[in-house]
């Protein structure tokens, strides 16, 4: 069984001091060329897809609110636009931006992701994300949120394994809204049947309006009439992915997503999480997230970065330091626990990305566990997900 590999791109990498490494390109982080280099590297490595992080507020060491640290990367691009900018530069690799469901208009997000699918020829995905922070809600001034740090222990959201906020009514409400946003998006993507455009000169009709459908969604946070303004995306429905650490997001992922990223810290935990999720969904693709520092001196590299940052790096995901060969061993062990793919978060860019695309993929291929060529031009094709028929199409 081959496994799926994705990388999670963010700034200079996932270690807060990664931008200070000699191999980093910190001056270039806000240039299109930097991102073009990363995504073409991922494609040369035959990876399934890249994800792009985003949020509606700057990075911070605080759980809720902004710090005044000047020694870490601050600032991000809108991830959907960044993914679109990269689409014409690539041909196979999937592009999966993060877009928040909490303060955004579901209609705009759905149409944006549909457009990404059109401009990439069927390689779009989406990672819907909730935004529970009061500081981000103040950027919109429409809703008042309780401060998030009231819920959290000292180490905040980076606690190994992530944090279970399932019991909090505010967080539950945001997940319910996210589920509505994904439901609306999928309905909007289906709202144009595949053959809606007829261009029938004899009758003067460009579209068959019986194949354009209102979506008539009415939820507690928003209503959307539809249909979409954008014709059906090449994949029918772009791939929806979700990061999940606990019961509530597992349920969200099982109900709404095609791919889930989970954060086990051992093969046993991986097995337990897979068992829990499989009871909720038979079809969901289960990926494990890992932060990776790769190479002969990976542990020393990470230690030096910790020293520069003044703190030992922690993460919700397991942190791996070692060689590409050692990482291949670990991935295959977790694969035996039921994990179907991995979303690797490079500790430093571009170094750890190159270790993945040039080292890890070769190791896995040597063991018969990774592709030797792209087998599809769509993200659904790479992931083995069927192209769904529109829910509104009458079975003929």
């Amino acid at each position, binding site marked *: 069984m081959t496994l799926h590999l994705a990388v999670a791109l963010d700034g200079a990498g996932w270690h807060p001091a990664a931008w200070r490494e000699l191999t980093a390109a910190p001056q270039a982080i806000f240039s299109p060329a930097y991102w073009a280099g990363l995504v073409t590297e991922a494609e040369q490595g035959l990876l399934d897809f890249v994800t792009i992080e985003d949020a509606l507020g700057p990075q911070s060491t605080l759980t809720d609110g902004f710090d005044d640290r000047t020694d870490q990367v601050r600032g991000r691009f809108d991830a959907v636009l*960044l993914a*679109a900018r990269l689409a014409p530069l690539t041909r196979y690799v999937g592009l999966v931006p993060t877009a928040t469901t909490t303060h955004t208009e579901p209609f705009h997000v759905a149409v944006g992701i549909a457009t990404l699918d*059109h401009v990439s020829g069927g390689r779009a995905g989406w990672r819907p994300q909730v935004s529970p922070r009061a500081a981000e809600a103040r950027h919109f001034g429409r809703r008042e949120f309780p401060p998030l740090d009231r819920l959290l222990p000292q180490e905040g959201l980076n606690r190994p394994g992530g944090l279970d906020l399932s019991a909090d009514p505010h967080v539950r409400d945001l997940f319910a809204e996210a589920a509505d946003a994904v439901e609306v998006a999928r309905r909007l993507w289906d709202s144009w049947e595949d053959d809606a455009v007829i261009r029938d000169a004899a009758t003067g009709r460009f579209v068959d309006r019986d194949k354009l459908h209102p979506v008539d969604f009415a939820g507690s946070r928003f209503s959307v009439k539809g249909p979409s303004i954008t014709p059906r995306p090449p994949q029918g429905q772009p791939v929806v992915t979700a990061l999940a650490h606990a019961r509530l997001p597992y349920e969200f992922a099982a109900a709404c997503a095609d791919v889930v990223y989970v954060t086990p810290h051992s093969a046993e935990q991986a097995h337990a999480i897979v068992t829990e999720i499989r009871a909720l969904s038979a079809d969901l693709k289960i990926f494990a997230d890992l932060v990776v520092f790769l190479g002969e001196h990976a542990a020393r590299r990470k230690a030096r970065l910790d020293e520069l940052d003044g703190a030992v790096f922690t993460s919700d995901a397991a942190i791996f330091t070692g060689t590409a060969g050692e990482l291949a061993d670990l991935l295959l062990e977790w694969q035996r626990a039921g994990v179907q793919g991995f979303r690797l978060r490079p500790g430093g860019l571009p170094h750890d990305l190159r270790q993945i695309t040039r080292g890890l993929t070769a190791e896995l291929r040597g063991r018969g566990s990774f592709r030797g060529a792209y087998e599809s031009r769509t993200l659904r094709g790479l992931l083995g997900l069927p192209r769904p028929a529109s829910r509104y199409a009458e079975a003929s």
Partner: protein
Amino acid sequence: MTRKRVHLAAHFPGVNNTTVWTDPRAGSQIDFASFAHLARTAERGGFDFFFLAEGLRLRELKGRIHDLDVVGRPESLTVLSALAAVTDRLGLAGTVNATFNEPYELARRLATLDHLSQGRAAWNVVTTSDAFTGENFRRGGFLDRADRYRRAAEFVRLSRELWDSWQPDAVVADPETGRFVREGGIGDVAHHGEHFSIEGRFTVPRSPQGHPVIIQAGDSDEGREFAASTADVIFSRHGTLDDGRAFYSDVKRRLARYGRRPRELKIMPAATFALGDTEEEAAENAAAIRRQQVGPQTAIAFLEQVWGRDMSAYDPDGPFPDVEPDLSEDLSQGRVPFGDRAAVAAKWRALAQEKGLTIRELVIEVTGRQTFVGTPQSVARQIDEHVQADAADGFILVPHLIPGGLDEFVERVVPLLRERGAVRTGYTGTTLREHLFDDESESEPS
């Protein structure tokens, strides 16, 4: 004699009957290749920018989706961001509604586009209040016209506060000192106004243009005032010489009130065109395009919008009907209304009677006339003369075909405009602001 430079922009054909889809050369309205073709053509012609319109709900007539015109388009800023990858200098202008967006998010998307295009982003600020479009959004339809402009003006002001909140040199990214951002380089934003009340910190470093270019298309008094105070470009509807001159002088006159010079706001009317090897051939081509744009069903649909009643029983190639409009009914949703329908109906009827026109002929007569018709030489001359006569600073060209509707213009008219010294022979700057405003030293004809 010094002369004004002519600014040109390319409008991707829209979802209305200007866009001819029945022509065998008509391509996809949604494939990225169509957008890339038109954008590259515009860039080859040295155009200032590429322009995308927006519509957030499919248009309806008689309670059903209007199916006679091209339907379906992408999200503006997303497709523009992709176009940034296949063009180098062309400005990228997107229409985005200020009613159905929030400043923090949209300012961030526009700043992102400006970075990703290295200084080529523009925002055409529009507003909507119709509840019909609002049905697709959280916030629904609301606000009367005056409120819409106040909201739009506050939206733009707040966006600029957000864009200005990162100092130009905020990102130092110096591994030696360990400083990624300069102390005090990122300011906090606190804005408490009539329509928006936000506090916090922006997430995108200051973009290459500082402020993406602002375009405005409203025509009302409020719209003109908003443009005079805020916009860099007006996308106007006044393409004829007299109309254009009146609009031009009115708007340019308003600028002084805001401490702005006339050249700081470019006026670019929408313009259509038809070319031919001779004047006669151009006129024939123009007439043929108009017939394509107003097919028999489209003629009836136009009538129904004005008359407010079902007119499908009438023969489009028959005599103009002698019935009164039903002013209680508005059958059209999601498009710019016809205004005083009683007056429009009376005018149409009188014109049809006077000239003995059929329904379709009448609709072609009143809706379809191209702005510029002629040989490449005469079209180049007309465009230049309009600009030199202060009827415009340039034009946003609206081709009738996707994706090749500008090919002939760029191949045949642009070289003549260059010979006249009316347009640049190549880009001299890299950002859209430079394309629009770096012509302070006016050129001599070559």
